[in-house]
């Protein structure tokens, strides 16, 4: 069973559509303003990561035709939520303990921070906002998190736990994350895709914009490309790298295989990268590109490399 990508959402400076991810990206200086995109309602007491996730999810669900003026168009129990984020709540955690030490007591901290102290607040907030009652997962798995989230969405759909899944990667930019990662700046944005069982998509007439193929996980970039290529030695039509040009020397790639490097464009993308690459693949297919497209996240010095093959959808 191969799931389909039926929707995309992007909340990033300088990008409006999946096709924009393929060319030269002009990152504008303006941060995403969630209130301007979805209104202020529901954003109070939400941390920055959750706010970014909310406006990105809104776009993805609308794009997939699952959410509109009348609310959800399908039963909320059929929709899973999988969010990838490594740093979503580190600002809350660090500021709470800082305040306690400064005051010498817990009396000065806000009880409104309580949900935000649990890392899964982003995924559960999306579920509450849209009534998404399927399985709800928060993946905090380092550099591979975004592609790992896609793998688990696929697995949940294959196991008949949901017909479709909102998969979203998000990271906030703040001083704590910058110091922790050693990065000059962090993406401060989100990317989302909607994955759907082909039968469920067909039932509501939703076109597939990409097909999710094999996923692999290995101890390094070179091995990941080899395994994605498989015994048939499939050469990808295009590929999204894990950063720092790692993998460029792989024998799996053809001499002219287009390489799209989204890592580092917005600073440290962390858990957003894998989902962003899937959105980029949608843009590649929308522009008439062939498949398969390989997406890789996690470099050799990380715990592991995750890889995903995305295939061109059948013409409708």
């Amino acid at each position: 069973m191969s799931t389909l990508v039926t929707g995309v959402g992007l909340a990033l400076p300088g990008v409006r559509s999946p096709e924009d991810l393929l060319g030269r990206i002009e990152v504008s200086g303006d941060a995403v303003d969630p209130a301007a995109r979805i209104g202020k309602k529901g954003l109070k007491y939400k941390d920055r990561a959750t706010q970014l996730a909310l406006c990105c999810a809104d776009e993805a669900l609308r794009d997939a035709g699952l959410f509109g003026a009348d609310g959800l168009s399908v039963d909320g129990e059929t929709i899973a939520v999988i969010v990838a984020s490594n740093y979503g709540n580190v600002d809350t955690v660090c500021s709470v303990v800082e305040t306690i030490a400064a005051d010498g007591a817990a009396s000065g901290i806000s009880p409104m921070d309580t949900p935000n102290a649990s890392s899964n607040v982003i995924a559960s907030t999306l579920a509450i906002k849209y009534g998404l009652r399927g399985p709800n997962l928060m993946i905090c798995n380092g550099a591979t998190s975004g592609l790992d989230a896609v793998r688990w969405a696929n697995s949940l759909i294959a196991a008949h736990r949901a017909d479709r899944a909102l998969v979203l990667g998000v990271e906030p930019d703040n001083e704590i994350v910058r110091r922790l990662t050693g990065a000059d700046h962090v993406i401060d944005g989100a990317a989302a895709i909607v994955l759907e069982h082909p039968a469920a998509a067909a039932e509501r007439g939703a076109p597939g914009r990409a097909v999710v193929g094999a996923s692999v996980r290995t101890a390094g970039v070179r091995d990941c490309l080899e395994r994605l290529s498989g015994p048939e030695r499939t050469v990808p039509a295009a590929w999204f790298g894990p950063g720092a040009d790692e993998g460029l020397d792989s024998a799996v790639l053809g001499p002219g295989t287009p390489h799209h490097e989204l890592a580092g464009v917005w600073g440290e993308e962390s858990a957003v990268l894998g989902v962003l690459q899937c959105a980029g693949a949608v843009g590649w297919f929308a522009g008439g590109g062939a498949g398969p497209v390989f997406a890789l996240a996690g470099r050799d010095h990380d715990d592991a490399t995750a890889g995903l093959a995305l295939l061109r959808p059948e013409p409708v």
Partner: protein
Amino acid sequence: MSRWPVTGVGAVASVGDDPDEIFRNLCDGRSGIGTLRGFNRDWYNADHLYEVDNRASRGADTVGRASALLAEAIGQALRDAGLPEDLRGIPVLIGTGLRELRSLELWWRDGADFDAARMHFGTALRERFGADDTHTISNACSASLYALALGIDLLECQECDTVVVAGVDVITESMFGLSDRLQLDPPDRLRPFDRDRKGTVMGEGASAVVLRRTPEPGQGAMYGWVRGVGVNCDAFHATAPDPGGIALAIREAHTRAGVKPEDVDLVMVHGTGTPLNDAAEATALADVYGQHISGPLMSGVKSMTGHTSGASGVLSLIVALKAMREQRVPPITGLDHPAPETDGFRLVRGEAVPAPVRLAQVDAFGFGGINAVAVVEAAK
């Protein structure tokens, strides 16, 4: 209907350093509660937690305690299953509520050495076990049973022959502080389902199980079978549970396991001791079990382990498997006056009871209304 053998178990908690010791102490009614060890006691009203007592000295907290507890539990489970400490190519799914956020706190505020690579557990497990397919699933207090659901899905889809499912949590000062802010009269112990319960008390621990696609005779212990796991989300409230969502998760677990309420011999309740959780859980159980509500024994571990958050689901599952093997069910301690919503429940109170257990239901519910319920079957 499929079922997946549990071939190894491992656990560490405040009440014991391995599953045997934990089970023995639970049956003896021994609690792991103690006075605060990891934080500055002058800053808080509360002064009790169910901590794992492995710090070099009181108040001297160190980074990496969660990773260390996790590695210990996984190492135990691998040895128990007769497997080498080599997890290359084997999926390891870790459910957690608070990851290594305690280490993050020590880094940011107190200047401890820590970096982004250690925020998730893959780094430590790669170093210790060579693991390269690790997944940190941060699903609050239902995390390890959520991980179990994903693990059996991998076995079902024939993506692997072996999977390790674990849970871990050590207490963060931020979560403890927020709890202290809300609990003006902090509970001195955790009393699940008691009419006079005052709230939860956090605990520390790690738990791990090894699952196979097929049992291999002579290789490792056979504890029992995972028959099915149901997972869902209330989509109701960030902190308040919804009995309707919990009931749906229980029914989902029963359906996936192919069992009916009257088949279940034991329910290991989530039972956090908060007024809201326990009332919602009891209401959901009464709804699902209906006229059969007085059938299964009902027990739980948190009165003696504290709320071990991400570790608690698999820890309860291990206790259920041990109860099946030893035909003895540990009690809920401190349950002096059962709450009215538990009327008709066959609660195990005071002391352990001898009982044959063939099928057990294990509950785990988390912040944000994320529910996971497992059904396990005895090895026999």
